[in-house]
């Protein structure tokens, strides 16, 4: 549920948490996108070839450039929607940290080899 901003007492937040939540969730999504693209590029030759944006660097160039684009676009969208709102930060933080944890696991080669 979104609520208006308030600064009634010295310990009450001056700013709404929407902007911070947007940045945190976008960071989780960007990290997860990078891990999924890296995993897909490792397993599927067609994906691997399509991710070669800069030949000397190979598929890593496409994996990282695409993930950064996803991260920034999602950040802009969430920021635009939540900037002046108070959102359920607990749930958003859990999702973002969960995505980050999954990303760390998905980039670990022995786990990638399970797929």
């Amino acid at each position, binding site marked *: 549920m979104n609520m208006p901003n308030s600064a009634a007492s010295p310990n009450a937040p001056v700013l709404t948490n929407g902007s911070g939540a947007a940045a945190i969730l976008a960071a989780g999504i960007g990290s997860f996108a990078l891990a999924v693209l890296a995993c897909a590029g490792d397993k599927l030759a067609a994906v691997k070839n399509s991710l070669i944006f800069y030949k000397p660097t190979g598929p890593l160039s496409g994996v990282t450039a695409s993930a950064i684009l996803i991260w920034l676009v999602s950040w802009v969208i969430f920021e635009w929607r939540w900037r002046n709102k108070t959102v359920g930060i607990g749930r958003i933080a859990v999702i973002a940290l969960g995505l980050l944890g999954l990303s*760390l696991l998905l980039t670990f080669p022995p786990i990638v080899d399970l797929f």
Partner: protein
Amino acid sequence: MEITVRGLWTLIHGMGFGALYLLACSGALVELHRFTTSSPPSVATPGQERFFKVYLLAMVVLAWATVLTGAYVVYPWYRAAPPPGTTALAMFPQRLLMSSSTTIGWHSLGMEWKEHVAWFTPISITMVAFVFIRYGRDLKNHRQLRAAVLSFAVASFVAAGIAGFFGAMINKYAPVQGGHTIQLSQGEEK
């Protein structure tokens, strides 16, 4: 005493940007915790807060400089394919590591993990810097936001640590070398 251009770039990437980032991490974690907790000792002057914002921005620059020089300057030299029939692999670090069962793990585990996990560092620290610059000391009034920011800061440190460890070990077993030689000093013959 001399160094090759490729060796110098590897040094700039790892010891310059990467190691400096890792050194900055411990200070950032302590200061983030101090600035954003509610206890009285956390009260900081506007000057200290401004300094910490610049400190975090410097970390953002270091993190991006590390991954970009790694991926677009050093990594192409690392993964270069040797011409068919080449047996001297010293100039082709990836193939050199893969040529022996005792070193292949440094590529198949080390580099394969490092080349991706390292990118979590700039993404995380950019978010951390943005949130701190936006909220400043008001972050102490957002307990869950603060906990998430601190968690991402720790994750950026862990990711940088993994990348730094494997980078150092890979460069020990198969250093990136080649290019022009830069003479640093002239040694005297004994």
